């Protein structure tokens, strides 16, 4: 997997060329970008909806929208993936607006995790399934930051651009999101 941590000015030169070609209508170049980023976009969408069926539908729409809008893409000093994930976020928002049945996962029960042995907890190694399920239980803004930062590997500035917040706010949300995630995981351990 190609490095996820491309800074704002660190876009791979090859990728920049593909982006330029895709913007000028080169479908093959767009295909290369798809090959490079399809997994990240899909994973990002998966963590929004939590199941593969919806993730596939949404990912397909994200890429079709990207194809439709690629001619208008402008280099704004951010990696191309930021643009793709912006489309993904909008797509997910539309998805939930259409469903109108989004349930809040800001479950108060998740916050009742005081009293655990923090030192014991510090060395706990969670498996991927536990982590995945816990992330999916985070409230939306927390989940978004966790996914964008730790799974998508974006810089704070890029996350801030996507979320339309300042970087400081993103750092605060990140901190709180990790605290929330930890409590969710602790609750799972308790339940076992």
């Amino acid at each position, binding site marked *: 997997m190609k490095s996820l941590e491309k800074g704002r000015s660190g876009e791979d030169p090859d990728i920049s060329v593909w982006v330029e*070609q895709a913007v000028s209508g080169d479908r093959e170049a767009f295909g290369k970008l798809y090959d490079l980023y399809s997994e990240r976009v899909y994973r990002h969408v998966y963590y929004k909806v939590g199941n593969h069926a919806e993730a596939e539908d949404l990912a397909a729409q994200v890429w*079709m929208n990207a*194809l439709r809008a690629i001619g208008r893409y402008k280099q704004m000093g951010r990696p191309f993936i930021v643009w793709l994930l912006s489309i993904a976020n*909008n797509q997910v928002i539309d998805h939930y607006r259409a469903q109108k049945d989004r349930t809040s996962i800001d479950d108060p029960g998740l916050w009742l995790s005081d009293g655990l042995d923090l030192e014991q907890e510090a060395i706990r190694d969670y498996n991927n399934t536990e982590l995945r399920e816990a992330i999916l239980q985070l409230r939306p803004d927390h989940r978004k930051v966790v996914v964008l930062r730790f799974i998508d590997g974006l810089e704070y500035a890029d996350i801030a651009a996507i979320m339309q917040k300042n970087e400081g706010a993103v750092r605060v949300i990140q901190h709180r999101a990790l605290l929330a995630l*930890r409590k969710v995981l602790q609750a799972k351990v308790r339940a076992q």
Partner: protein
Amino acid sequence: MIPDDLLARSLEEFRQGKGSLEAILTRFPYDTRVELEPLLRLALQVERLRDDTETAPSDAFRASLRSQLMRATVEAEPVVYRNGHTPHAPEFEVVPAAPAQITPMPARRTLFPRRWQQLAASFAAGALMVAGAGVGGAQAAKDSLPDQPLLYSLKLAQEKVQLTLASSEDERVGLYLQIAGTRLQELSRATDAGKTDLAYQLSQKYSQTLNQATSSLQNNGPQKNAISNTEVAGFVAQQVTSLQDLQKKAPDGVKEALALALSAAQGVHSDLTVSESSAPGQQVAPPAPQATTTAVVSDPPPPMPSATITVPEPSPAPGPSSGINVTGGTEPGGSIPNREQAPPPSTSGSLSPAPDKSGDQPPSSTAPDKGLSGAEPAPQPIPPRSADTPNTAAPVPAQSGSDAPAPPADPTPAPAETSASPEPEPSEPSGATPPPSDKPPVISVPPDGGAATASPTPPPADDGKGSGGLTPAPTPTPSKGLTTPDSSGDKHRVLPSVRPAYEAEVGFQQPSNGVTISITGALVAPDDGRGMP
């Protein structure tokens, strides 16, 4: 509680290799470290999910979506920004197994939307030119290659505007051929520069453009084309030759790219040749009994694979169809040269109303080979070549005393006047064949490909079922030539486009219920500056 920023800074330091996790943690007091460490470790554990196979798309899904993306036809859409910087266009269209294409404008449009569209397109073109000047000028854009994205996108946008402004399918075909010639020139430059990637791109674009030209040609229907298959095939044959020459001198890598373009051109040429051979009526010009216009085409289409395009050279005089042919009265963009060959539905008048309005006949525009009442048409009186050939139709004066439209409600309308149209359909009753005695105007095309002239047509006989009047505008619109550079770009030939201006009134009766419909309108060439009366 630790400061919010502390976690972020600690993670950043760890990522930057400024120390192990333990080393970073030891910098902080115990209370902070106890709180910070589980979060740091948790963050690093979450990062493992980047390679989690459980959340990765399946290979089948990825392949399927990729295939869709490669084949998807994406319609041009208005720019929509909801938040100022994020493109957000949820609607899209996917047409499987179809090349990307620009959706042609609908054939029928009302006058005002059309004008607004032209105004908008003109504005867009102007804006593009201004933008072009800002980045080095339109000439720079014209000379650009795809490795200059900004200039090249400007160039493509200009082409798109031209296509949008095309008032007829014929004009669009000519533009596509012109664009294909441009792609070929670019391909030649990319070959000379040994740019393999560019050559591949341009080969693909060239192939797409050729396909769009042929699609547009077929969409228009063989009987309505001012540009015949033979001419297009000749044009393509010329490009095949150029590509073959180019391939001989190309580096190995570029040769493969050129092979793609060559294959596409040969395929199109082959299709057109077959298509043309199956429609010999387009190559010959036998006068038909029902025709009111006789075309004398003195320069037959070039034999294949002739590389000579037989479209007329630019001529200051109006094209033949600008003065003689008016059908499809609701199309403001101008008439289609050979539509008169298709007898109209059961209506009368000098405009041929759409069948769905008369309600009793299939549309002539969709079944150009069908005569009235679905009968097989008589030999086509005027082959499409008559409009393609180098010629100039003289302006046809309005027929005196015959232009007055019949009252709309008159069930037995006055004789239809077709002062300029050679076609019999305006005055034909439903299911009837046009009177062979109608004296057609004669389009004569000099053997040298010079200007052709058309003589006026006497008014068709009154069929007693409809009425209408058609008056050519006082000043016939000259045919606007489309220059189509050949592959070398140093020769320009002209493909005709027809933009006549007519005023017309038509009344026609539905035989089934006796209801008479009257339509009054004008056909105005978009660039004439004349509008609806």
